[in-house]
C-alpha cells in the first residue's frame, strides 16, 4: 500500500540521529554553562586583581595608616597614604549630588506616577531615558564650560574646579535613575491602597503623601542608595569638574579629589608599573569597589524585601 509508510529500517538510523542530537544538546548545555561561568570569573577576577596588588601595597603601607590617615600625597615627597581625603571628596560629591537629584527626582517620579496623563508620560519618560544615556564625559564638559563659570560668578572665592561643580553635574546625571527607580516603586504600590484612602474621603495630596509615599518609602530609599552608588563610582565628570587636590573638607567650593579621579590621574601619568605609587590605584580601587558594593547590596536587599511585601 502506498499510503502506509514502510515500517522497517528507519529505527536504527533514527536512534543514531537521536544520539547525535543528544550529544549536540549536551554540547550546547556546556557552552551555555561556560558563558555563565564568565560572569562569575569576572567577579573573581576583580577581587583577585585588586587584592593581589593591594596586598603588595599593604606590605609597605599599613592598613591602619591607609584607612585613618588624613593626608594623601603618594606622588609627592614626603609621601602620605591616608585615603580619607579621597573618601571625603567622594562622599561630598555623592551627598551633594543626591541633595540635588533626590528632591527633584522624587517630585518628578510622583508627578509621572500619580498625576501625569498617559500622553505626558509617553513624552517625558523617553526624554529622561535620553538624559540617562548621555555619557559622563559630556557632563564633565558641561561642568568645565558652563557650570564652573556660573559658580565662580556667584561665589568669587570658589576654586576654579570645585566639589559643587561636580555635585551639580553628577546630580543631573543620576536624576533619571532616581526618577525611573522611584517611579517603578510608586507604581508597585497596590491600587487598593489608593482606592481605600479615597473611599475614606482623602484628597489626592493626602493619598500621595499620606499613603503612597510611606508605602513606597523603603523602595525609594533603595533607589536613592543605588543612585548614590552610581555617583560614588562616577569618574569622568568628577575628574574634569572637581579638580585634582586631595582635600579633607566639607566646603563644596574648594577643589577636591575623588577616588575615581585619583585612579584616572595615575593612569594618565607616567608612573612606572610595579612601583608603590602605581599600586596605590589598586588599593584605592579596592576601597571604591567595597564602598559601591556595600551600597548596592544594601539597596538590593531593601528592594527584595519590598518585592516580597507586595507579592
Amino acid at each position, binding site marked *: 500500500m502506498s499510503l502506509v509508510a514502510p515500517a522497517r529500517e528507519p529505527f536504527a538510523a533514527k536512534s543514531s540521529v537521536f544520539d547525535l542530537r543528544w550529544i549536540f544538546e549536551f554540547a*550546547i548545555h556546556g557552552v551555555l554553562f561556560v558563558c555563565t561561568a*564568565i560572569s562569575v570569573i569576572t567577579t573573581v577576577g576583580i577581587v583577585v586583581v585588586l587584592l593581589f596588588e593591594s596586598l603588595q601595597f599593604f606590605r609597605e603601607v599599613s592598613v591602619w595608616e591607609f584607612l585613618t590617615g588624613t593626608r594623601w600625597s603618594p606622588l609627592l615627597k614626603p609621601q602620605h597614604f591616608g585615603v580619607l581625603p579621597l573618601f571625603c571628596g567622594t562622599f561630598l560629591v555623592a551627598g551633594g549630588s543626591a541633595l540635588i537629584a533626590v528632591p527633584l527626582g522624587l517630585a518628578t517620579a510622583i508627578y509621572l506616577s500619580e498625576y501625569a496623563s498617559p500622553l505626558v508620560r509617553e513624552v517625558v519618560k523617553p526624554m529622561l531615558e535620553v538624559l540617562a544615556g548621555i555619557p559622563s*564625559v559630556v557632563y564633565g564638559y558641561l561642568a568645565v*564650560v558652563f557650570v564652573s563659570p556660573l559658580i565662580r560668578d556667584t561665589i568669587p572665592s570658589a576654586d576654579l574646579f570645585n566639589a559643587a561643580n561636580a555635585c551639580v553635574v553628577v546630580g543631573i546625571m543620576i536624576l533619571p535613575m532616581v526618577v525611573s527607580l522611584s517611579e517603578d516603586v510608586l507604581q508597585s504600590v497596590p491600587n487598593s491602597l489608593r482606592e481605600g484612602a479615597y473611599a475614606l474621603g482623602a*484628597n489626592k495630596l493626602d493619598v500621595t503623601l499620606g499613603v503612597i509615599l510611606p508605602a513606597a518609602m523603603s523602595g525609594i530609599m533603595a533607589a536613592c542608595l543605588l543612585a548614590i552608588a552610581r555617583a560614588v563610582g562616577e569618574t569622568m565628570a568628577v575628574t574634569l569638574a572637581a579638580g585634582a587636590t586631595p582635600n579633607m573638607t566639607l566646603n563644596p567650593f574648594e577643589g577636591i579629589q575623588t577616588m575615581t579621579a585619583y585612579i584616572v590621574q595615575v593612569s594618565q601619568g607616567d608612573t612606572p608599573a610595579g612601583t608603590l605609587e602605581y599600586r596605590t590605584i589598586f588599593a584605592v580601587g579596592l576601597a571604591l569597589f567595597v564602598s559601591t558594593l556595600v551600597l548596592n547590596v544594601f539597596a*538590593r536587599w531593601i528592594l527584595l524585601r519590598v518585592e516580597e511585601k507586595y507579592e
Partner: protein
Amino acid sequence: MSLTNGPHGRPYAKLASRMFALFCAGATWLCVTILMLLLWNVVSYGWDSLSWEYINRFPSRFAEKAGIKPALVGSLYLIGLTALFSVPIGVGTAIYLEEYAPKNRWRTIVQINIANLAGVPSIVYGILGLGLFVRAMQLNRSLMAGALTLTLVVLPIVILAAQESLRAVPSTIRQASYALGATRWQTVWCQLLPAALPGIMTGVILALSRALGEAAPLVAIGAATYVRFLPEDIVNDEFTALPLQIYTWTDQPQKGFHEVAAAGIVVLLVVLICINALAVILRYRFSKNKQ
C-alpha cells in the same frame, strides 16, 4: 465633596493638593528643560567647529586644525568588537540561567552576582582590564584590550535584559514546544529566542550605547589620547575613542579646544541618539505586538 474638604475641616486642603501637583509638575518640566538647555548649549558651542573636514581630520596641537577621525573610527571598531563578544556571551548566560540551570541556591548566587556586577563602577573594570588583558594577556593598549574590558562592563546589562525578555515569553509556548517532542535547545532556538528577540535587541542596543560613551575604563587601561593614525591591527595598534578624545580636549585650558570638544560631543550624541531612538522604536513595536 469629601468631608475633609469642607469649610470647617481643612480649609486649605484643596489648595494644598493643587499646589503640590503644580510643584511636582514643575519638577518634571525642570528636568526636561535642563535636558534641552544642556543639549542646546553643547550644540550651539560646537556648531562652528563642526564640518566634514572636522570628521575627516586627525587631531592636532592646534584647535582649528583638530579633527576626530581616529576617535570616530576607534569608537566604531570598539562597539563592533564589544557587540561581537558581549552578545553571544550575554544571551548565552541568560538562556542558561532561565532555561537550563536548576533553580537552586547556586543559581541565586550567580543571579545576585550579576546584579552586583551591574553596579560595579566602570573604572574598576578598567583596573581589572589593566591587570588581566593589558598585562597578564599581553594585549597592551590595543583595541582588543579595550573591547574586552568594555565587554565586561556591558555584559551584566545584556544578561539582565535578555533574561527579562526570555521570562516574558509565555510558558505555554515552552510547554507546546516540548509537547511536540522538541528538545530543550530546539525550544530555545526555534521558539523562545525569536519571541524574545525585540527585548534582547533593546537591551543590546542600550548596552552598546553605554559602551560607546564609556571613557573611564579606557583611561584606566591606558588607551592613548593623541593618535595620528587609524588602527589597522586590532591586537597591536594603539587606539583612541570618541569619549576619550572629548575628555582630552575638555581638559585643555584653551577655549579653542573646548569648542572642538563640543563638536565631538555633538558627533557622539548624534550616534547615541540614533542608537537610542532605535531602542525606543523596537520596544514600542514589541509592546504593540503583545497587545
